[in-house]
């Protein structure tokens, strides 16, 4: 007798046996930001598997509407691993069947060829650091132990807008006298979004490359501006044999608040709200909620306001789990963007600045500000940029 897809999924998904605990309560489908447009939100996926009727799931393109925002995983009373478990596992089945939207396919192919989903030259991975008055050291040229191995990540290396966040981060490290280095051309994509998009093999390839490279160097800890890097190093790299201590930069800086605070000399008289990146907060219970707020509240003159959806209840920017390469696909089906909902909520809070702490947030919210015609009302800035404004301007 052939094994049913249900049995296969139970066996081949990490902690997959928990799927048996589903009582079809529907919390997952209710909280899913795309639940209204998905033909098979998580509850129905499990129902279809149990009924041994998964062919229509693979026929529909429902799985590619999942942005890996972890909202379903957060609310599931049975703590079933939905986002990084069931959904990623079923996306893998879609990939095996060759059912992948073209934008995402090219991002995956680019990652395999160039080590980054943007299809940029791997040699130019550190080009963003050109022109900084104090150079950013590259580990291969630095023959000493550093405190911080700064894993820069794809968007922070290549996306023109996010590069300025990387420059701000470099200036903060330098202002604090932190001994740090980057991998530069030796760095490959961290593999987080590829993994969540079901390309486990590609993730393993990337993790092995990065893991081997990192093992050559001596450092105390990895620090990153990218919550996806943080998440994948913390939760997935150990599964392929690489365990490194890793911190998001907001954690690293919050630990040094007494040293940082006296440097924040210039008042920033703005009303600022903060968007919690899914991957930094509710994903895998990473629960980094307070450190970003502590940093913002340490900036003199800054008035901090909360949005109704905050911390574990954040609204996804839509960029995770491959979502950045599914924008056209999603728009055609949903005719709305979660990033636009978020920007409206930020304006509703009375904020002048929407502070972010994830490289995907920056382009997604800046685009949403433009597509909703509110460029004059709201500015998107990374916390690192707000800190450098307070230190240097």
């Amino acid at each position, binding site marked *: 007798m052939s094994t049913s897809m249900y049995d296969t999924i139970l066996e081949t998904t990490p902690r997959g046996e928990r799927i048996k605990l589903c009582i079809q309560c529907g919390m997952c489908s209710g909280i899913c930001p795309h639940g209204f447009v998905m033909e098979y939100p998580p509850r129905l996926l499990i129902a279809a598997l149990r009924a041994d009727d998964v062919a229509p799931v693979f026929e529909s393109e429902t799985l590619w509407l999942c942005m890996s925002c972890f909202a379903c995983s957060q609310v599931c009373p049975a703590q079933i691993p939905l986002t990084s478990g069931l959904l990623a596992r079923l996306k893998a089945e879609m*990939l095996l069947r060759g059912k992948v939207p073209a934008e995402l396919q090219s991002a995956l192919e680019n990652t395999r060829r160039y080590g980054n989903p943007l299809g940029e030259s791997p*040699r130019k991975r550190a080009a963003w650091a050109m022109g900084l008055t104090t150079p950013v050291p590259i580990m291969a040229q630095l023959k000493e132990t550093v405190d911080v191995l700064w894993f820069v990540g794809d968007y922070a290396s290549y996306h023109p807008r996010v590069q300025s966040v990387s420059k701000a981060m470099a200036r903060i490290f330098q202002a604090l006298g932190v001994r740090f280095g980057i991998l530069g051309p030796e760095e490959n994509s961290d593999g987080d979004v590829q993994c969540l998009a079901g390309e486990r093999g590609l993730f393993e390839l990337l993790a092995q490359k990065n893991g081997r490279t990192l093992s050559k160097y001596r450092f105390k800890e990895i620090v990153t501006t990218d919550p996806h890097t943080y998440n994948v190093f913390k939760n997935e790299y150990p599964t392929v044999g690489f365990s490194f201590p890793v911190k998001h930069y907001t954690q690293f800086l919050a630990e040094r608040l007494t040293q940082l605070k006296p440097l924040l000399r210039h008042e920033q008289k703005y009303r600022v709200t903060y968007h919690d990146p899914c991957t930094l907060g509710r994903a895998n219970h990473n629960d980094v909620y307070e450190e970003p707020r502590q940093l913002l509240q340490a900036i003199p003159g800054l008035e901090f306001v909360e949005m109704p959806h905050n911390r574990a209840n954040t609204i996804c920017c839509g960029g995770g789990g491959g979502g950045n390469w599914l924008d056209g696909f999603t728009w055609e089906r949903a005719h709305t963007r979660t990033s636009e909902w978020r920007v409206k909520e930020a304006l509703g809070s009375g904020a002048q600045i929407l502070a972010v702490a994830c490289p995907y947030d920056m382009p997604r919210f800046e685009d949403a500000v433009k597509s909703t015609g509110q460029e004059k009302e709201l500015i998107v800035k990374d916390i690192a940029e707000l800190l450098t404004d307070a230190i240097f301007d």
Partner: protein
Amino acid sequence: MDIVVPIKFVPDLVEELEIDASGAALDRTFLRLIPNEQDDHALEQALLLKERHGGTVTVLTLDTGDVDETLFTAVAKGADRVIKITGDFAGLNNHAIASLLHPVLQNLSFDLILTGTQAVDDLDGSLGTLLAARLDLPYVGYITGVMPADGNVVVRKEYPGGLIAEMAIRLPAVLGIQAAEKPPRYVVTSLVMQAMKTARIEEIEAGQADSRGAAGVARMFRPEAAAHAEMIEGHPDQVADALVALLKERGLLS
């Protein structure tokens, strides 16, 4: 139907291209080579034909360095045989490549050879036409569809101006593929890794390359601007006035 797909590796335009000291060729020191994009379409078309009508797909390439992953990826996608021709091949033109592929193709049995209709480094004609000439086979390029019919094939050929022709071709034949009927498929990394463990790349030593007949390159250079755009500067109102005056002068506004 048995199909051979020769894959050519071409300079990757993601990297900046440099011209070497001779001034007539690319500097190959930092050149990255990738499979020609249209050859990927030729492979996809071959796989579609195999899936629909049976037969085999053989992929053939010159070992210009780092070609194994491409060959194993072809296996993971469904190719039956992968062959690399070994030797020293830096900077060969298409005439020379055709002369190296020719004896290998003569020893393979096939109904069709599918190539990409063109490549970024075609300085001396397309590879498909040169192969067809050497093998004395019919050639049709700019193909966007292939259907078997009565032991032969009917192909769709694209013409400029939005015209499409259907024509019947006797087999064996060489076809230049403009685009496969479907976009080239994605194959997951785990299947490529599996192919690396289980598939075997056949190796054939290259014969003597013959580049006779190819035009020589006298000088290679970046495009030189012949005329420059006129930039209208100043206050937006002045710019608008100047623009309107210009458009009137050219008869585009009355």
